[in-house]
């Protein structure tokens, strides 16, 4: 399976602060990938590096087997929607399409016009007068009508109301169904991503904490509840992600490939949101935590 994005030890520093540290990733193609993490975690930095708007301080990143934005051919294969959806407020919707047609040799004019019509946008309307949801849809249209192989969206639904958010995701999924494009979208809301993503990357404080297919992640993480127990005394092969204790009871979120055999535990599946939140919370008391070294 080929990788659409490969990062090795990628790091980016602004003056004193490291926005991204030691990021090693391999994103497979044909997925809808969710990039999730709190504000300031480095999601935007990673995506901007992927489209060549930033250059790495350390390490390297390859997109579709080439450095990002190497030339017009590479630029044509990646579609991008930046944070806060920049559009030319003085230009009309139709002007944006004309711009897309002139700046992209692979522009599919019919696709763009059909999409605009289906969305009910007035081609003569200036982009500055559109609502946030409409601007997001316009930006998405410009990004997809050039028929890219990879679509990168930086917090596309962050400032949209729930209806606009749903409509955007509907449109995006239609595009995926039709064109088979790989999508990487970032959000700090997991609920947004849960519906549409089948691959997840969790970025916290400029580092990758978790990455993998959603099915696999859900299958290998379990919520264990049982009598108060020191996490050290778990069976080998289990990695405790987070733990909380009362005086009587222990609740652990563990990651393991093997079945849980200890009968003292009640084993339950974990929802995606709870899973990500567990990785986001500070290191638990007791052994292990996020060091990730199974015993």
């Amino acid at each position, binding site marked *: 399976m080929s990788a659409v994005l490969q990062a090795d030890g990628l790091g980016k520093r602004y003056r004193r602060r490291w926005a991204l540290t030691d990021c090693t990733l391999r994103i497979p193609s044909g997925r*809808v990938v969710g990039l999730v993490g709190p504000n300031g975690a480095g999601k935007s930095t990673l995506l901007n590096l992927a489209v060549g708007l930033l250059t790495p301080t350390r390490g390297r990143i390859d997109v579709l087997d080439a450095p990002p934005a190497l030339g017009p051919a590479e630029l044509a294969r990646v579609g991008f929607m930046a944070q806060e959806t920049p559009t030319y407020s003085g230009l009309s919707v139709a002007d944006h399409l004309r711009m897309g047609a002139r700046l992209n040799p692979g522009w599919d004019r019919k696709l763009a016009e059909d999409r605009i019509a289906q969305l009910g946008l007035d081609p003569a309307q200036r982009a500055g007068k559109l609502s946030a949801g409409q601007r997001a849809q316009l930006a998405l249209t410009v990004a997809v009508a050039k028929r890219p192989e990879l679509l990168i969206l930086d917090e596309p639904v962050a400032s949209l109301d729930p209806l606009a958010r*749903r409509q955007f995701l*509907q449109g995006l999924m239609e595009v*995926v*169904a039709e064109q088979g494009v790989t999508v990487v979208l970032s959000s700090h809301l997991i609920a947004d991503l849960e*519906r549409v993503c*089948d691959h997840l990357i969790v970025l916290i404080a400029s580092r990758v904490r978790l990455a993998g297919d959603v099915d696999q992640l859900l299958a290998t993480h379990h919520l264990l509840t049982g009598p108060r127990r020191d996490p050290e005394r778990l069976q080998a092969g289990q990695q405790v992600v987070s733990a909380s204790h009362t005086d009587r009871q222990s609740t652990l979120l563990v990651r393991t490939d093997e079945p849980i055999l200890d009968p003292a535990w009640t084993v339950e599946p974990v929802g995606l949101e709870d899973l990500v939140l567990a990785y986001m919370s500070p290191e638990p008391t007791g052994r292990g935590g996020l060091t990730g070294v199974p015993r």
Partner: protein
Amino acid sequence: MIEFHLDTRSGVSPYRQIVDQVRRALRLGLLNEGDQLPTIKEVVGQLAINPNTVLKAYKELEHTGLVAPRPGVGTFVTATLRDGSLAAHGPLRRELVRWLAKARRAGLDEESIEALFRDAFRAGAEQDIA
């Protein structure tokens, strides 16, 4: 054409829900042989879920022999889960409604009715196996 809906809080995975909804529709006669299932694009355009999920559901239905894809056209129903029992659905349903009214008159609340039903259902199933 059948329309799917998604219950995000049910704990059942989306692909499973789609499979179940197709099977239910087949059983109730809402889908017949030769009917076309919605295209993947239509489904994701309505539900905003990953197309692979729908693909997985359709593949499983195909695997169990209920549907078959026709390349370039869509996915069509090839078998039915309906048995001759559909005719019996009407009277059975009426009887069930009458029984429910009786149970309520006897003072059972919803939770008790459900518990009673499940208990009897399980007992009956065990009897069948045994």
